[in-house]
């Protein structure tokens, strides 16, 4: 399938592309919050006030794309936790009012599908509509779903993407689970921190994908996933994935790796990087933080690299003399869930 348009809201200024003009934000601490656009033209005020952040990030990235081409055949999103903050807000109401009379707004927005539902509602789109929430592979599964749908031959254009929000509540829970660093550091030191835990990021990256090459900015060629691998031979798996796509390792001239500064899991990326010595290597979690569907941002970055945008130095981990035509994205979430995404230039 081919990407014909894209939009990202992230902790960097991606919504207006000023990240390519040298404006790179640095962060201190364990939370990298998204820099959000002014939604006023997009979302009526009353509606915006009631909207949870996850829904807002999804609408904010999706509606500008839909407005440009409102002939999409369906919407497929990946979000690990959707509007989890709405869940907790509703739960807090339950406890604080001892199960009294409650307003349903938070409850209705608490299910992960409410983002894709809102997008369908706002664009009056009765097409295929699905939401994947399998944690670190939710975005990869959304891509897979789109491939399956295109192969059936009934649709030609889809809106796909990822959305993830940060809230105090989910940060508290995940802190107990040991996801974050014990000490606060700056984002410029994140990847070299060599300690356990990472930082939390958030954002949305949405894409118009088409079955046809017309107006394409790049190709989203294939996706692959595996969970709890018994062996740690990431090179073997990458080569198998490439072989399936009739590519040899030296055909890959760009790697986008999910280094998160968590020394429990970063060895996976190092291992893969060493298997592709000639490839340019890019990182992104030092720009947008770690979250379950961060590979959505990696895909957005991949499309920009393939279109020779002025990629900030902070995202370039290793530069070689090759100019990227074929990019392999590899991400793992907490060492448990692993995904490959293959992208090609036009």
């Amino acid at each position, binding site marked *: 399938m081919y990407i014909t348009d894209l939009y990202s809201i992230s902790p960097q200024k991606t919504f207006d592309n000023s990240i390519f003009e040298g404006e790179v934000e640095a962060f201190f601490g364990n939370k990298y919050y998204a820099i959000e656009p002014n939604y006023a033209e997009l979302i009526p005020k009353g509606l915006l006030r009631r909207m949870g952040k996850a829904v807002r990030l999804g609408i904010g990235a999706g509606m500008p794309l839909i407005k440009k081409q409102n002939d999409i055949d369906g*919407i497929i999103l990946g979000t*690990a*936790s*959707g509007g989890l903050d709405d*869940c*907790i807000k*509703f*739960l*807090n*109401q*339950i*406890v604080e009012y001892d*199960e009294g009379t*409650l*307003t*349903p707004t938070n*409850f*209705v*927005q*608490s*299910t*992960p*599908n*409410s983002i*894709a*539902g*809102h997008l*369908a*509602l706002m664009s*009056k789109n*009765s*097409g*295929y*509509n*699905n939401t*994947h*929430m*399998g*944690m670190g*592979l939710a975005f990869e*599964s959304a891509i*897979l*779903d789109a491939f*399956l749908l295109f*192969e*059936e031959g009934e649709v030609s254009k889809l809106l796909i993407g990822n959305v993830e929000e940060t809230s105090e*509540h*989910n940060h*508290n*829970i*995940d802190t*107990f*689970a040991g996801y974050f660093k014990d000490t606060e550091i700056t984002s410029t030191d994140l990847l070299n921190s060599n300690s356990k835990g990472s930082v939390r990021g958030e954002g949305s990256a949405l894409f118009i994908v088409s079955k046809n090459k017309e107006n394409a900015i790049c190709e989203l060629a294939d996706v692959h*996933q*595996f*969970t*709890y*691998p*018994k062996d740690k031979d990431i090179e073997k798996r990458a080569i198998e994935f490439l072989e399936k796509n009739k590519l040899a390792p030296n055909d890959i001239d760009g790697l986008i790796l999910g280094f998160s500064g968590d020394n429990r899991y970063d060895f996976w990326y190092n291992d893969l990087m060493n298997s592709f010595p000639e490839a340019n290597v890019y990182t992104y979690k030092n720009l947008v933080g770690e979250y379950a569907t961060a590979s959505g941002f990696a895909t957005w970055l991949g499309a920009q690299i393939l279109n020779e945008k002025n990629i900030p130095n902070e995202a370039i981990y290793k530069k070689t003399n090759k100019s990227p035509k074929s990019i392999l994205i590899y991400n793992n979430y907490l060492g448990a*869930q692993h995904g490959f995404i293959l992208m090609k230039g036009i």
Partner: protein
Amino acid sequence: MKKVFVTGMGVISAIGNNTAENLDHLRSGKTGIGPAKYVKSNYGQSHPFAEVKLSTDELKSQLNLKTTYGLTRTDYIAFTALKEAIAHSNITPEQVSSEQTAFISASTIGGMCNADELYEDANLISSGSEFVESYTGSTHTLKIAKEYELSGIVDVINTACSSSANTIMLGAKLIKSGRATRAIVGGTDSIGKFSINGFNSLQIMSDTPCAPFDANRKGLNLGEGAAYLILESEDIVGDKETYAEILGYGNSNDAFHPSSLSEDAVGVVECISRALKSAQINPSEVDYINTHGTATGNNDMTELTGINKVFNGFPPFNSTKSYTGHTLGAAGAIEAVYSILSINNNELFPSLNCNTPIEPFNEFPIKEHKKAEIKTVLSNSFGFGGNCSSLIIRGTECEKVAMVECNNEKKHD
């Protein structure tokens, strides 16, 4: 495109801890809805619920899992149905953990059934409970993946109350496309304060046993349960027993309102029509409809409107939620299992509590248990966010006859 067969099923709900017990209740018209025993909520006594009739400890003790750390009621219910499905399909542990086996599951409440722990963890009142990695609707899937050492595609779908219908659709698609030869699909949910207060805040939770398709229906009852189906490609099914074929599916969005369906049933008509088209059958070939039938004012009226638009009348239909309550993320899978039971036994189960049909349709759901030739079933599932899904499930009797004839012809050649 490969054909997709159901070779195993497992179900646990308010009407039984396995498929046989569920079938007994459906045949005898015995509901599982009643006073709650395990629900911890102020509404526990004022409203009926459809609880699984085992305590969380009893569920746990029947399973013999490698690890139980951080497992919730939702997880134990899932493991119970999954264990039955795997045994029923007679697949080996190696086959379950093969990279060719996909696992697609769903849960809307997930570990939020442990509402008190979640409240304390999220608001830093606790020092971190054992459930911090158990709350979202996808955590049960990772726990299952670890226990069964799954290595293929592992995915979790959320389309609210139609979630597990979409797991069946996606599993079938993965097999048809050749990306997997086997898919384990379904969903799980349990009852908690969160869902109780949610549906109550929307004023659609009935204080009496639900009455789908009755003019005086007062809303839904919450239920809990899980169901898993083993789907296998025609390439690997061999001479194994098959229980049904997943013939078609349709997915749409009503695009009308965050928590209710449009009067003209746009999404309902679309998903049924797409399912019929993907199955390549005419509406007249549908022998029975297992409806979404939640017994809310909005759902039942819209669903009848949609069915009438597509079928220009009404094939026999029922709502098995009058037995199980609304099991949310598990409903689509549980109802797919019941649909297959109707096909395999050539019988229709009575829909309970409808005394006065809805105007202007004036149609009663199936009133009594009866024998009937059931080859093809439509199963509907709808959810918040406008998500609508329909499945077309067909018996494999005719399929088998055709395959034998085909093989005989080959022999003659």
